[in-house]
């Protein structure tokens, strides 16, 4: 079963605000949810993260999140989206693994966003 689910595989928009959804499963008390954008080159660019302990929705530039911890859901909101925001957006859950204190990212399958001029 998928631990991180992005139900929208594709999406398109023409300017304006875009919302990309993500839900996840975890039994951990402390975790992070991160959003990445994959460029056409393949490079993964970090956008924003939300710590589980923080009830305040995080913002970074024209990215923000809507975090609903009790529903294990988090949405990425892109305000004033432009064509250069096109790409594939990945949601990832960060969890501790093993006894070494290491973390791993569990990725969703991504949402391919096209913002038209």
């Amino acid at each position: 079963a998928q631990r991180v689910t992005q139900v929208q595989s594709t999406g398109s928009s023409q300017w304006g605000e875009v919302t990309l959804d993500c839900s996840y499963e975890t039994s951990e008390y402390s975790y992070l949810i991160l959003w990445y954008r994959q460029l056409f080159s393949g490079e993964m660019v970090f956008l924003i993260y939300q710590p589980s302990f923080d009830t305040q929705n995080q913002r970074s530039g024209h990215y923000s999140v809507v975090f609903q911890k009790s529903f294990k859901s988090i949405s990425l909101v892109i305000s004033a989206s432009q064509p250069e925001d096109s790409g594939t957006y990945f949601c990832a859950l960060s969890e501790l693994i093993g006894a070494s204190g290491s973390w791993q990212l569990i990725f969703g399958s991504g949402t391919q966003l096209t913002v038209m001029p």
Partner: protein
Amino acid sequence: GPKVLQIPSHQIIDMGQMVTLNCDPVSNHLYFYWYKQILGQQMEFLVNFYNGKVMEKSKLFKDQFSVERPDGSYFTLKIQPTALEDSAVYFCASSPTASQNTLYFGAGTRLSVL
């Protein structure tokens, strides 16, 4: 911003041969990772590496896989021998700390095993 470079971007190899994927992490980063993405599937954690040692590895990190960073040069993933199911895009990442919100990813190496 800082870049993680992966060389080559695409490698084609015959099943059973050895392959080494190279990653040039961000200088002064201390934590290194490999992730694997099979076409059409999620990216999945393979292994992380710190202070010259593997810290954790997933069940995807088979016995045929090994990682090293000799003398602070490239961080490498070696597969010997390769199998058809090793065909995927392999992403390298590095971080100055163990925190996951400081990870920088490379653009990936597409490995095609024939």
